[in-house]
């Protein structure tokens, strides 16, 4: 019969169950999926031949279909497979979608199971998802390494504050901002007094630790909108923004000087150190960023070669 031929030729595995959930009919596609002959299947309870259907949840689905007519679709992505082949290797990669539907004939209800093999499709999706995951990992690695390069380019590796290059970029930006807001900017140049003696006495490891703690104290003394940078050795520079008069700068510089004077605990060694600080003002002292740094440096040297541990403005020279 034509209907019989159609049933045998379609790619979807068909199982027809009676009201006691015994297999009444199956097609060639189903036999191919299960590696079983028809005589091994027909007349047997579906849960006996295909143990998946003996599980409570699938029994429930089949009963709901029989008793209440509920159509159910089960995705192979969630349930894996229902009709497993004999070959364990094929079992492992086997994925099947299942559709459960009720049929009625002469007052009798039947359950129609339609099983579609999606193993090949699943494998493609599996590889695609792994590819996406790998691409994601590569992207993350590239992003992290880009970030690390950016850090190396703009940050001082020892103290974590900005380096000279980033300080210059920030200073140009802050000068433009100050023009717009009609405010002043100040550049502070700071050099630790007798830092070489610390290195010579306690070693470079302690010297490095001291520089890290100095950087921490400098950051604690200024606002988050201000900038702290290390220019190398024991030289630090600071940009103070949004300033209304030079006296405010002097107060902040004094606060910094006093903060740095407090004793440092460096791996059990308690030591103190002072700093010489010079500062210049934008736009009063110069309109050139490099010149502002040089003028602050000159003011700092004036302190260094007079009394040390003090603050001087370029305008005082």
């Amino acid at each position: 019969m034509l209907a019989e031929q159609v049933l045998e030729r379609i790619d979807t595995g068909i199982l027809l169950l009676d009201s006691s959930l015994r297999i009444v009919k199956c097609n060639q596609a189903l036999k191919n999926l299960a590696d079983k002959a028809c005589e091994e299947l027909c007349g047997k309870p579906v849960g006996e031949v295909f143990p998946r259907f003996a599980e409570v949840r699938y029994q429930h689905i089949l009963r709901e279909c029989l008793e209440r007519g509920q159509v159910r679709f089960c995705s192979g992505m969630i349930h894996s497979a229902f009709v497993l082949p004999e070959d364990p290797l094929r079992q492992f990669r086997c994925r099947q979608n299942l559709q459960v539907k009720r049929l009625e004939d002469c007052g009798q209800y039947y359950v129609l199971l339609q099983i579609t093999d999606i193993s090949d499709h699943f494998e493609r999706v599996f590889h695609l998802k792994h590819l996406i995951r790998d691409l994601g990992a590569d992207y993350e690695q590239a992003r992290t390494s880009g970030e690390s390069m950016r850090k190396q380019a703009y940050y001082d590796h020892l103290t974590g504050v900005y380096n000279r290059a980033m300080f210059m970029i920030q200073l140009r930006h802050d000068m433009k901002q100050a023009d717009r807001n009609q405010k002043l900017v100040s550049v502070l140049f700071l050099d630790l007094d007798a830092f070489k003696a610390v290195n010579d006495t306690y070693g470079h490891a302690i010297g490095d630790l001291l520089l890290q703690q100095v950087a921490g104290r400098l950051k604690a003394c200024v606002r988050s909108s201000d900038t702290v940078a290390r220019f190398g050795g024991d030289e630090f520079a600071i940009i103070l923004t949004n300033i209304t008069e030079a006296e405010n700068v002097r107060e902040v510089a004094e606060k910094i000087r006093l903060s740095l004077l407090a004793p440092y605990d460096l791996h059990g060694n308690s030591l103190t150190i002072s700093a010489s600080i010079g500062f210049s003002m934008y736009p009063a002292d110069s309109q050139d960023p490099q010149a502002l740094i040089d003028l602050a440096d000159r003011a700092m040297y004036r302190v260094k070669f007079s009394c040390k541990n003090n603050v001087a403005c370029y305008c005082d020279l």
Partner: protein
Amino acid sequence: MLTELQKDILGEMVNVYIGQAASLLSEMTGQEIRLNVPQVLLLTGDAIALDPRVTDDIWSQGHIVSSSLRFSQGLHGKTFLMFPAAQAKALVNACLGEMELCTSFSESRDLLDTDFDVLKEVANVILNSIMGGFGELLDTCLEYSVPEIEMLFAPDNEQRQFLSNQQNILLLKTELFLDAASVQGFIMIAFSMNSISLLLEKINAMTEDFSDYAG
């Protein structure tokens, strides 16, 4: 339109039905899934297309994934479970335990065929529970169609046309909470005129029982 008491009764019932769906979904996916319907609305005729609670909440989020199934015999109509595409993707990834894909590609709204299969099943379980519950309430059998799934995107005027084609919509705002994600969607049940009358009659009978009991 529904009175507050009718809304309360419908809300209570739907939350019980949907609770059964949640435990089925939890069993299926191996993770705790909670479902909640905090809002129930009944809209009729032209009011549907103009009601901002429908047009804004459902359509404003771009592409949506709609799973639907028809029911007939005791009640007639069509029921839809709708998720914005990005939420649908998050739901699929959560069901498959692939949250890392969710976080790395949270912008991705590309759904694979297999994702549609998962959504189809989730919708099937939820919609079967609700419609099965209504069928039981009215002591009637329902004939269900095979679930269908589609991605929808319609400009404003077409949205209104789509909505105005539905005669009576019972709108259930739905929240799904999974271990690693919370997903918001909508259930729309478009009833025929006769079916909505049957349902409301039953609800009214229940409210009378309730009043008698209270009295």
